[in-house]
Structure formats: structure tokens, C-alpha cells
């Protein structure tokens, strides 16, 4: 490990991508993630990479599609309204089974909304915001150090499964500075990309990458293959942090920066003799169903806290499957729930 540096979350995403071997970045500025593009614009030309500010988000995601076809590591980043614009391309990337990393530093919506932090794009990220039956692998870091580690990992996972992989953060995480410690050498896993359209050298047949097939039988078998892949990912790639859960009176489910607020709440609750646990999904898809199933047997109640009107809570309810009551507390519009609000909600659920 090297020395500790104090860096902004957005800058760390860009640095991590470069360390992971990404030399192609296409984007379009939007608050609160523009520092990703700033950093790329500064660094990429110095290391023989490509930084390109596209004419729009739609153009940027299609450039990602094109670069991914050639087998290079490629990334784009944006914030909520920009990610909506990219959805067509994201669906095409899924259909063509291309590895690509897409970063969404969420802001408040709907519409143009506001520029303050929110988590209202959960459904869009994990349920497939574009058309068709597809999934993205969705990683939800909660610290600047984790932004680094998960961004590097996102490139490995994208290549491993030939899948669009999303880093889902919010404005707080993108804008804050924290200490980050980069490794001397990254764990870059090299996967053979014999499917890439990177020139035949007259030595092999042409590779064809497309997401269209008008023969329903073939298209269905294609879909079934995708579903097989998603099943494999569900079995192998779930990541979760279980914190203070054993013997907890109530378990909170929260991800990203909200999970950090909840960790403070856990300390406050402890002082009042209430034991609160936290299940923090690190992969939002695949969702850590097993953690919820396990604790649903022994915990009195669950509370999901989000900066949304209630989205992840639906997955928590599916996982808990009626074995314990699941409540929800959320704020929207760019308002961040306070520790006191969350503690009050916990106490009202437990009648304390």
C-alpha cells in the first residue's frame, strides 16, 4: 500500500478506472459527478488514453458501446438525468453482451430535479432502466476507499461476465473527500476476448457483435443464455456487509452514504440500550437475499432507510418474505435523513 491521499470521491473513481486499465472514457458533464470528467480530461492524454466529451449522453454511451466492441476497458459516468438518456445504449450493451462500466452519481429527481444527493434511481439501476429482460451488475460503495476498490472490481466483473456494470453512488459520496490508500499494484484480471471486433489479421473469421435477431427462436435462446448468466452472477457475486446484526432488536437496511448515517444511529441507539443492526447491500443486484432470509428468522423488525420514496424496501420485503415486519423511512428532493429522524423512527417501531 502507498501513502494515504485526501481525494474527492469523483476523482477517486477516475483514478481507479485508470489503474484498472481503462484508457477510454466518454462522457458529458453534469453535477454532481463532473469531477470524474475533469480528472479524465487531465490524465488520459498523458497516458495515451482517450478522454472525449461527447455532444450528449446518448452519444457518449454509444461511444462506450463501440469501444467495448473492440475489447478495451471503457467507462462513462453521469448523474441521474444523464443516466436516463443513456438507457437505450445500456440496453444495447446488455443485448450485445459487452463489458462496460457506467457510473451514476445520483441527484434528486424526477425530471431535471435538483443537484443534491438522492437514491431515487435504485429501480432504474437494478430493475433494468432500459427495455428488455436484462440486468446490470450494480455496486454501491459507501466510502471513498470503497469507491476505489469497487471501481477496479467493476472492470473485472464486467469482463468476467461480459456485462454492463454500474457504480451507483450519490452526490455526497462523489463530492466528499476522505483518505484513500491505493495499492502498489491492482488486481487486474485479464480475460480472453476472442469475441472482440478488433481486426482479424486475415487469421480468423469475422466476429459479429449485435443485439438484433428477428428469428424468435434464436432470440429466445439468446435471452435464455442471458438469464443463465444472471443466475450464475446471483450465485457467485453477492456482496454485503452485516454489521451488529446478531441479537439485534431491529435491523436497518441501507446502502451507500445512508448506511454511514445508520452506523452513527447504531451508536446513538446503543447509548439508549437499543441494539440495532445494519445490513448494507454492496451489490444491489444481485441483492443479498440470503442475509435477509437468515435474520428474518430471529429479528423482530426491519427498517429500510433510503434517500428515496421507497425503492430498495421492495427487495427487502421480497427477501424477508413476510417473516418480519418491514418499515420504511425516506427523504427525497435532495434532503438527507438525519440521525435523530432515523432513531426516532426506530424507537416508534419498537415502542420505546
Amino acid at each position: 500500500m502507498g501513502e494515504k491521499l485526501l481525494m474527492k470521491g469523483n476523482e477517486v473513481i477516475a483514478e481507479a478506472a485508470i489503474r484498472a486499465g481503462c484508457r477510454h472514457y466518454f462522457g458529458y458533464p453534469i453535477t454532481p459527478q463532473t469531477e470524474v470528467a475533469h480528472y479524465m480530461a487531465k490524465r488520459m492524454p498523458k497516458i495515451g488514453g482517450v478522454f472525449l466529451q461527447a455532444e450528449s449522453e446518448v452519444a457518449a454511451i454509444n461511444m462506450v458501446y463501440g469501444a467495448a466492441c473492440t475489447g478495451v476497458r471503457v467507462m462513462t459516468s453521469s448523474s441521474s438525468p444523464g443516466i436516463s438518456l443513456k438507457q437505450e445504449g445500456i440496453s444495447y450493451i446488455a443485448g450485445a453482451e459487452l463489458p462496460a462500466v457506467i457510473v451514476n452519481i445520483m441527484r434528486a429527481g424526477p425530471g431535471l430535479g435538483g443537484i443534491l444527493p438522492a437514491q431515487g434511481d435504485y429501480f432504474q439501476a437494478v430493475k433494468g432502466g432500459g427495455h428488455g429482460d436484462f440486468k446490470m451488475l450494480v455496486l454501491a460503495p459507501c466510502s471513498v476507499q470503497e469507491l476505489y476498490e469497487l471501481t477496479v472490481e467493476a472492470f473485472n466483473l464486467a469482463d468476467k461476465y461480459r456485462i454492463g456494470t454500474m457504480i451507483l453512488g450519490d452526490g455526497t459520496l462523489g463530492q466528499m473527500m476522505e483518505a484513500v490508500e491505493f495499492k502498489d499494484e491492482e488486481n487486474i484480471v485479464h480475460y480472453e476476448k476472442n469475441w472482440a471486433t478488433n481486426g482479424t489479421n486475415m487469421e480468423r473469421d469475422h466476429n459479429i457483435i449485435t443485439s438484433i435477431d428477428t428469428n424468435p427462436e434464436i432470440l429466445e435462446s439468446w435471452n435464455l443464455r442471458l438469464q443463465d448468466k444472471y443466475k450464475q452472477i446471483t450465485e457467485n457475486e453477492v456482496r454485503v456487509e452485516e454489521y451488529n446484526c446478531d441479537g439485534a432488536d431491529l435491523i436497518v437496511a441501507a446502502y451507500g452514504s445512508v448506511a454511514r448515517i445508520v452506523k452513527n444511529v447504531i451508536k446513538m441507539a446503543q447509548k439508549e440500550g437499543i441494539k440495532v443492526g445494519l445490513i448494507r447491500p454492496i451489490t444491489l443486484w444481485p441483492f443479498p437475499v440470503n442475509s435477509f432470509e437468515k435474520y428474518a428468522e430471529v429479528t423482530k423488525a426491519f427498517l429500510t432507510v433510503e434517500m428515496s420514496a421507497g425503492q430498495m424496501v421492495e427487495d427487502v420485503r421480497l427477501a424477508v418474505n413476510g417473516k418480519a415486519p418491514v418499515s420504511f423511512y425516506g427523504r427525497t428532493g435532495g434532503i438527507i435523513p438525519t440521525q435523530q429522524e432515523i432513531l426516532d423512527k426506530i424507537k416508534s417501531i419498537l415502542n420505546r
Partner: protein
Amino acid sequence: MMHQEIIIAGFGGQGILSAGRLLAYAGMLEKKNVSWLPSYGPEIRGGTANCHVIISEDTIGSPILNSATTLIVMNKPSLEKFENLVVSGGIIISDSSLIDKKSERKDITTYEIPATKMASDMGNTTYANIILLGKLIAKTGVISVESFEQGLKKVLPQKYHHMIPEEIKALEMGMNY
């Protein structure tokens, strides 16, 4: 266990965000846990800026502050907006050359320092934020002067390193005021 929650607020251009960043950097060099969260909302373009800095020997949960152990303010709207977030027994450090109002709170300690005037007398008003940080350091011991100097060397580009002795002088003026 040392745990300081600091809000720094004022106008854009007064070095609010960079003061917080210097503090956080120095804290990190002392192997403490640190976080720095800037306001990046539309208000920053309208004139006001603030940042939340946590420096702690404990792990840091949320970087978002709903209360502060110390508030440093460089304009009146910021004093009015944030004074009630200061915990009982906490500290407000204000630039009295820009703020004519005193905090009404009786359960906290207030230090009024004409920082912008003092910095102007030094020949550079941009040192005002550093003078106020000096008071913070003197009253809380949150970081040492040595770490602050080390942090300056890390944060400032080489071409500004000749200003470091003056910055340290400003810091010490604030400490001794």
C-alpha cells in the same frame, strides 16, 4: 477520544472550502480519520459556501454534520444559519471585521477575531481563513502547527510554497489573538 466536528462557512472566494481541506489533510497526516464534505448546491453560486470537516480518533460514520463542536463563520448569513447547530459547550469563531452581530448563545464560547482586517494589514486578505483556523487549533488542539505546515506543502502547488511562511505567521496570529 478526540472527535471534532467542524463547520466552516462564509462567502465563496474566502477560502472556506480550502480551509476545511487543509484541516482535513493535516488531520490525516496525524493518522486520524478525516472527512471533508463541501456544499455544492446552487447556493454556492449565489455567494455562500460551507464545508463539514470531521477529524477523529474514532472511525467516522456519516460525513454529514447535523451538529458541530466548532463553527467558523466569515459572514453574517452563515452565523445565523449555523449557530444553533453548535453543541452546548462548543465554540464559534467569527470574523468580526465582516460580522457585526454577536451570537445570542450563552452555552458556548465565542471568539471574535477581525481576521479579514488583520490579513489585509499583512497585505493579503486571503490569509483571513488561516487566521481563524489558528484560533481553532489553539482552542481545540485538533491538529498541530507542524501538521498544518506539512499539509500546506502537500496541498499547495510548488509555485505557491514561498507563501508558506506567511501562512504560518497568519496561523500564529490567530492562535495568539
